[in-house]
């Protein structure tokens, strides 16, 4: 049975938010941030076209590989680090239990 997972999100002001997220709703991390008012714009609506949901992955989870759109957008983004990902391209699954991320500046 699907159960909610917990994700730790550090917003742009350094505040940590512990959020419970359902795994069976096909949500992505950008949507999770918006739903919880964590100050992520999601300007392009989740199409890897704006990088306003760029985040740094702090925990050591095995994440899906970046797709071509995400790679291209990160090459056009600022504040990019080794652990940068676009929240809109990371879908919530039970494997992400305990994920820790920090929202990048925009």
């Amino acid at each position, binding site marked *: 049975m699907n159960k909610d997972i917990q994700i730790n999100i550090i917003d742009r002001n350094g505040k940590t938010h512990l959020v419970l997220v359902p795994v069976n709703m096909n949500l992505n991390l950008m949507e999770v941030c918006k739903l919880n008012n964590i100050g992520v714009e999601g*300007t*392009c*609506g989740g199409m890897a076209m704006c990088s306003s949901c760029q985040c740094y992955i702090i925990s050591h989870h095995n994440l899906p590989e970046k797709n071509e759109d995400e790679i291209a957008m990160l090459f*056009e*983004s*600022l504040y990019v680090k080794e652990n940068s990902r676009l929240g809109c391209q990371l879908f919530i699954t039970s494997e992400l239990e305990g994920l820790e991320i920090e929202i990048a500046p925009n």
Partner: protein
Amino acid sequence: MINTDILIIGAGPTGLFTVFEAGLLKLRCHLIDSLPIPGGQCSEIYSKKPIYDIPSRPEILAGDLVNKLLEQIKPFDPTYTLGEKVLKMDKISENEFIVTTNKGTKVKSSIIVIAGGLGCFEPRKLLINNIENYEGRGVDYIIKDPEKYNDKKVVIAGGGDSALDWIIFLSDRVNSLTLVHRRNEFRGAPDSVKKVQSLKNKGIIDVITPAEITSIKGEDKLTELSIKRDDIITNVNTDYFIPLFGLTPKLGPLSNLGLEIENNFIKVNNSLDYQTNIPGVYAIGDINTYPGKLKLILCGFHEATLMCQSAFKRIHPNKKNILKYTTVTGIHGFDGSIKESPKSTIKAIK
């Protein structure tokens, strides 16, 4: 001064649909947007991407949605001030506001509607030491006057459509043109990538990849850029540097209009009509917040419809409420056009 019934700040889908609902109530609209074209995010960020949650449209490209809205509101003859930002809003009397833009345009209106989405789009600024000192002195984040680059040396950085489009546009008018991108691949319309490849093959432009600008020099104005590729730094003389790394929305001047702001959004009274703390000023679409708010285009359309009813009552307090069914009355445009369903023909069967 421009005079109107409703001034709409923001020409995205919600702002555009407001013109339609206002038009049914015989209210005229003027729109102001900081972008040079109407459509907001749908035009600027993802015009070629499909949207799937517009009622009756199983799939529609964002750009096509904007075009359809423009077609839908055309009979109501909206007027536009594009490429300008609202800086000031003065309430002259109960139903009279004067709004001033950064270019000095003044609009007098009975009602103000802020449909500004996530705010004004501003260019993302590069993180290079001292670059801010060269803004307007060789570094341009926005191309406002392409003529100024004629016969000059220009370097453009970026890997998206904007960088490619301007490279193509400027290629036959500048002295030298260089495109710098952090990787070899470009994300743009295939046709644009092909054109830029052809310009490079003909020696008309220089393309430096994978590379990035690391420093910027010049006395009174920009004269030299350092470009790093494969850990080797090359200095390039140039007159202009145009970094094109996309746009990011900022509430900006809209946050200084005296409106109640919550978490960077404009607080409205959702139970009634999306009016803000200033009577006669409404906020609809993605820019507003209230309990239960959903940032969806279709919710923006709904908010626009209710807001127009409230605006009508403010402008015409002694008139009765009007609810127009377009199936019955059709569309009577301000331009004299009439769009209505054909009348039934009643004939006896002998």
